[in-house]
Every structure is written in C-alpha cells, then in structure tokens.
C-alpha cells in the first residue's frame, strides 16, 4: 500500500510545483523584466546613486577645488591624481592652485571616500552610468574644464 501512497504523494508534490509555474505562466502581469535601453526615458535612478565622479563648474567656468589633494589621499586604490602649481596672489602670497584633476574611471570603486574627504565640496558623483567606451584610455578623464579657475571664496 505504501507503494501506491508513495506514487500518489509524489505526484501531488510535483503537481503543486507545476501549479506554481503554471500560475506565473498564465499571469503575465507578474513579469518583472525591465527593458533597459527602451525605458531609458522613464528610467529613474535613486538620487544617491553613484556613477561617475564629476567636478561641478558654475556659469563663470569656476570650480571649487583648492588642490589640497585630500581626495587623492583618501582614495583606496589610486583613482585620483591631483596636479597643482603655485600661484602668487596679488598680496604676494604663494598659493596652491589646481592644474589638472585626473580621474581614472577604470580604477574607481565608487566608494564615495573622495567626496566625503573633500573640505570644499568640489567633487561629487553624478548619475551617468553608461560607462562603456571602445578604448581603455578614454576612461581616464580630466575633471576640471579648460581654462577654469577656482571660485573667489577659496582664493
């Protein structure tokens, strides 16, 4: 008798599984797929999402980086390289100025330590996440724009 019971209980357990898959097959509303490039227009990323480091510039092409290299020190894997030069201010003081802010996206782990360490909020992460390029060297970026200067308050 246990032989037949065995067969029956097995069949019931298998049918239960088929009921579940059958349920999802017949309820296309449960489909969870989001079609990515098609939904690009409606895609909404959370505001804290970190995708790429940027240096915001204001309308006069001024950034807020004083060239202190705190971000370079904070970065665990050498993503950032800050090149600076010395400038003599009108009142004859020597001041450090940002020359080039090099950001190697290929090494970045998006850990946010650079942004945390920045004393003047010069850098922040944006939400542009489509990083793929055809050449590796394109992933090395210069964040400060051509001919940009530091804002007056940091001068």
């Amino acid at each position, binding site marked *: 008798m246990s032989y037949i019971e065995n*067969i029956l209980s097995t069949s019931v357990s*298998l049918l239960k*599984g*088929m009921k*579940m*898959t*059958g349920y*999802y*097959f017949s309820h*296309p509303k*449960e*489909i*969870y*797929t989001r*079609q990515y490039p098609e939904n690009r227009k409606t895609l909404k990323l959370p505001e804290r999402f970190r995708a790429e480091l940027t240096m915001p510039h204001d309308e006069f092409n001024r950034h807020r980086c004083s060239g202190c290299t705190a971000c370079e020190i904070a970065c665990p894997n050498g993503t950032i390289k800050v090149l600076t030069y010395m400038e003599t201010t009108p009142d004859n003081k020597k001041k450090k100025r940002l020359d080039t802010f090099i950001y190697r996206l290929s090494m970045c782990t998006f850990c946010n330590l650079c942004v945390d360490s920045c004393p003047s909020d010069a850098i922040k992460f944006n939400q542009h996440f489509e990083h793929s390029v055809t050449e590796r060297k394109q992933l090395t970026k210069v964040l400060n724009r051509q001919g940009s200067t530091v804002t007056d308050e940091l001068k």
Partner: protein
Amino acid sequence: MIITALIIAISVITLFAVLGLVLVYMERKVAAFMQIRLGPMRVGPWGIAQTLADTVKLISKEDIIPNGADKFLFNLAPLMVTVIATLALAPLPFSDKWIIWDSNVGVFYVAAISSLTVISILTGGWASNNKYSLIGAMRSGAQIVSYELSVGLSLVAMVLLSGSLSFSDIVMTQQDAWWIFKGHLPAWIAFMVFIIASTAELNRNPFDLPEAESELTAGFHTEYSGMKFALFMLSEYINMFIVSAVAATLFLGGWMPLHFGQDNFFNHIMDYIPPLVWFAGKVFFIIFLIMWFRWTFPRLRIDQLLTLEWKYLLPISLINVLAAAWITVTGWHF
C-alpha cells in the same frame, strides 16, 4: 516516383527547419513566462526572429574539432542523430490524407527507430575525447535502454486496445471517442507512463542527465559547436515533436476531431475544424506539457532515475498491459 520522393524530402526538410525555429522560440517564451521574464524581445516583434538569428550565428560559427577526437565519428554523430529523427517521422499521419508512408507496422517502426538515438549520443560522447562527454554518453546509454521498455509497454497497451499496429488504423478506431476517454484506467496509465518515459528518452529535464548542465557542463555535446551543435539541438526538438505526435495519435486521436458516439450534432460541428489543426493542437499541447515539466522540476540523480524506471514505471506498465488485455478481451471499452 522520384519526383514524389523529392517533394517529400523537401517538405520534410522544410518542416524540420520550421519546427526547429518554432519550438526553440516556444521553449524560450514558455521558460521566460514561467520565470517572470519576457524572453527574447529584440529581433523582430516580440523577438519572433530570434531563433532565425541564432541559426545564422550557429552556421557562421567556427567549427571546432578537438585535437584528440575521433574525427570521423565526431562528425558522424550529429548527422546520425538528425537522420534518425527524420526516419521516425515517416509513418505519422498529419491529417486524414497527409501521411508519408502508411505502414501497417508504424508503431513498431517508430519504437524501433527512436531507440537508435542512443547510438549517436554514445558515438558523439565517446568520440569527443572528453571525460564530461563520456560520462554524459554513458548515462544516456543506461537511461535510454531502460526507459525504452516502458515506452514500448505503454505502446503495447494501446496496440492491444486498438487492435492495430498501423497509425492510420489506430486513428480510425478513435472515431467515436479518443482512447484517453474510452480506454478507462489502462489508457490513462499508459498515457502517463508514455509521457514520463518519453521525456526521459528525449533527455529533457527532469531526466536531462546526459546533458546535466550543472554537473557535466553540457554532457555529451560539450565539445560540439556551431552547426554540429545545432543539429543535436534540432534533433532534440524534432524528437520532441515525434514523441508528442505519437502520444497525440495513440491517446488523443491524432487528427481525429473530438467525437463522442456516432453521427451526432456535436461531432458534425467538430468536423468543421480541419484535421491538421486538430493534430497540431494536440501535438503542441503535449509539447507544452513536456516543456512545463522542464521548467518546474529539479533533475534526478542517476540511481534515482533507474529506480524510477525499474521499480515503478516498468512494473506499473507490465500490470497495465495485463489490464489492457483484460479490457480488450472482455470488450469493456466503449
């Protein structure tokens, strides 16, 4: 004569190509819907041309033969498996007029031919000179040899009930009702045993041990790539079609519309639907059932697989043949 043969050959090849495309697409969509995703969506509307694109890709892929492989057998195996699948198609009636070869031993012929598949799998697995392939091939051998028995016995039960080995005769015996309705318990049991055992013969989940993706990477066709792999895959789907067609013919009346009793109003309405549609509908229903199994169940282990056959399916189908014989002798079916 030659022209007829040519026409048949061309139509069979076309049927194969179309079946391959349709069934692969269907499998992917069925799987996707059960897995709460959409499946192929990019090529054509709802990804309808996806399989076509895949075929083009497979054809244009580099054909790799491993260094240590037995070249001749390695190339022969995918050819053999396709030829065997083609041969089994011959005696199946697609509708009341469409049948390639109306043999009077059709059931016997299909059973004999379809058991040859294992040879090509063994050949392919052995010739690959890969241990994964070899294990897969050996599993396949054990599996198909044992499940062939249950398939055969469930066919015997149906042959007993219908009293003929010819597929067209069997269809004609279901004029008043399909065997699944008038054959009582033996027909039911034979149907279930047939579906389970033939799923095993097809090497499909839950019996896909020769391939066993998570254990043997791809089993017997690990080393095959490009078109040779495509032929293995195509023959799997063709075999699935043949198995479903046999099941539909034996148990669900083949092309016969849904009839109850003789010559009544209901039967006449049903006759308006063409036989080919009936046939295709039943076949695809059974194919869907087999796909449903695949996307629900985990895989068995090799010893459990053999236990299922020798301890459960075989005794049950043996008793079932007796019961079918008893019913036939006493004439209890309608």
